[in-house]
């Protein structure tokens, strides 16, 4: 069985718009239904052992809600899930101790007037480390995250990147099979972000199962074996990272021209291999099967005007993401 199996998970939050005694009384007397926001809508997926599974989505997509449900910290309204073979509802305490959760800004649990060592010591014994072994374990994890020379420093004197490393060290005090990482590199400098990304790759090598919630698409593309793109609580697409790019990704030709005429756009759009042409000032973005038909496109442009610059690229996950989200938004507006 896979370490993470979830099926039709639905989560709704009651919307609170401040205290309104009339509204509250009506809701209490069941005369009026409270307003709900659907944070997750029938979400299903499984994650294999040793896999890095990405959850991508804009702010408010439901990523953190999903991470908290996987950690057993939030109860879903509907659906079922097994984490590390434990039922999410019945064996909630075992689910919670099967996962290691790392949140961005999770370092606020540390006391600013205690040293890194003294902060970690409490969380070490809370994880079941004996007093005789906790010191060695803290030294080991601080070495792993590169804070071995800062164990007597205070969190208030650390940068955001170092604090996140300290948070990571807290996470590593216990050895658990599943890691749930919620935007682990958010607000962290590039150097520390790179360190954390390398570390996530190491986790995979050690056979850990990692769920990474992020809106850093480049990061997801670099790290994840599979990705689920989430928007307004629903999974828009779920597949291997490469497959998603192949399925939805496009080749884009960006052409800077001296001037753009309606005739040029009309002619370019008439080609069967061109999906769409977008005009931005004196730049044209041509989407479609570009690589094979590049000479035809360049010749067509030259026929109408002078070329200033040409650039061709395959769409990144970023482009795929934006395309998917935009299509979904458009569909909602149409409804």
């Amino acid at each position, binding site marked *: 069985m896979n370490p993470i199996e979830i099926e039709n998970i639905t989560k709704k939050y009651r919307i609170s718009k401040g205290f309104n005694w009339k509204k509250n009384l009506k809701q209490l007397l069941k005369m009026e239904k409270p307003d709900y926001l659907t944070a997750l809508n029938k979400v299903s997926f499984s994650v294999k052992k040793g896999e890095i599974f990405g959850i991508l989505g804009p702010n408010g997509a439901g990523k953190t809600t999903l991470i908290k449900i996987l950690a057993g910290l939030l109860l879903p309204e509907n659906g079922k899930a097994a984490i590390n073979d434990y039922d999410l509802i019945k064996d909630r305490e075992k689910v919670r*101790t099967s996962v290691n959760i790392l949140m961005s800004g999770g370092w606020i649990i540390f006391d600013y007037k205690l040293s890194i060592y003294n902060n970690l010591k409490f969380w070490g*014994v*809370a994880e079941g480390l004996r*007093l005789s072994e906790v010191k060695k374990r803290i030294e080991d994890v601080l070495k792993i995250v590169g804070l071995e020379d800062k164990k007597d420093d205070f969190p208030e004197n650390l940068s955001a990147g170092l604090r996140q490393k300290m948070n990571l060290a807290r996470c590593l005090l*216990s050895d658990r099979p599943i890691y749930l990482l919620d935007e682990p590199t958010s607000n962290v400098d590039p150097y520390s972000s790179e360190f954390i990304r390398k570390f996530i790759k190491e986790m995979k090598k050690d056979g850990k199962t990692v769920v990474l919630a992020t809106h850093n698409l480049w990061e997801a593309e670099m790290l994840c074996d599979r990705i689920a793109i989430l928007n307004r609580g629903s999974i828009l697409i779920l597949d291997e990272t490469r497959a998603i790019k192949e399925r939805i990704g496009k080749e884009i030709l960006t052409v800077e021209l001296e001037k753009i005429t309606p005739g040029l756009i009309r002619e370019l759009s008439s080609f069967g291999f061109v999906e769409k042409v977008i005009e931005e000032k004196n730049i044209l973005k041509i989407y479609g099967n570009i690589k094979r038909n590049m000479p035809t496109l360049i010749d067509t442009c030259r026929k109408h005007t002078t070329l200033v610059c040409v650039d061709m690229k395959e769409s990144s996950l970023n482009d795929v993401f934006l395309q998917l989200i935009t299509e979904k938004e458009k569909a909602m507006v149409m409804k």
Partner: protein
Amino acid sequence: MKHALSSLEKLGVIWVYLCRRAKLWFRFKISFVFSFVAMFVTIAIFYFMNLFVGPVQFDYYDGPFFTFVLIGLAINQYMQTTLNIYLGTMHSMYWSNWLEIILTSPMRLKTFFSSVMTWTYLYATMNVAFYFIIGIFVFGAEFTFPATAWIVIPILILLIISLSGIGLISASMFMLANAKGDIEPIGWGVATLSGLVAGVYFPPKYLPGPVQLLSKILPQTYAIDAIRRVLLNGEGISSISIQLTIIYLIVFSIVLLPLGMFMFNLGIRKAEKEGTLARWM
């Protein structure tokens, strides 16, 4: 991967937590010194009030007003601690995101609360000892500490158990009624009323009739009275009023503690459903 801690590991958690709190306590040196100054000033105020009002004759307690009130202040330490500890801990865990991390650790909430309680009651006991040391050695309060003084310990324990029920109900309001501010009506109401009606500073018999009735529904009224009877009058377990107090406190404990635990668990369940275990994540 551990799902639960052994008893020895739980003791380890409590020990490390105590060391951690002690380090923090000493780290804030000004606060450390001023807390003792504040206690000293409180005792001094009641000492001089005692000189001002002169000897006071109570119907059923022996001794002057100063020793009478010193006992009230000491018990009040435990009362306020018990009424505030659960809500205070929930409050700090919520705002610092500790609650979610604790729930995902094999330590569990019970061991954490045990750690916090051990520290807080040690701290309260130290304050009480300070009250008595200053009261006796600086201001000359006279205590006989009779052979029956041991009975104070079970009375105090029963008082703490019954007030824990109210403390847990108060903490449950943090989640059930979204009382996320510093003050929650139930705990605050009982703590504030205690000063007026439970006999901390004066016997409840001086209160108007209906307010006296209010004092009868609070467990602390009985405990304060019984502890004074033991320490001032030298009464022991053979005294009917002491026996009745113990029975009352057992009844209060049997009713209030399970109710408090039930409501607290209900609150946690509600927070798990609503996603309000932590503030910031």
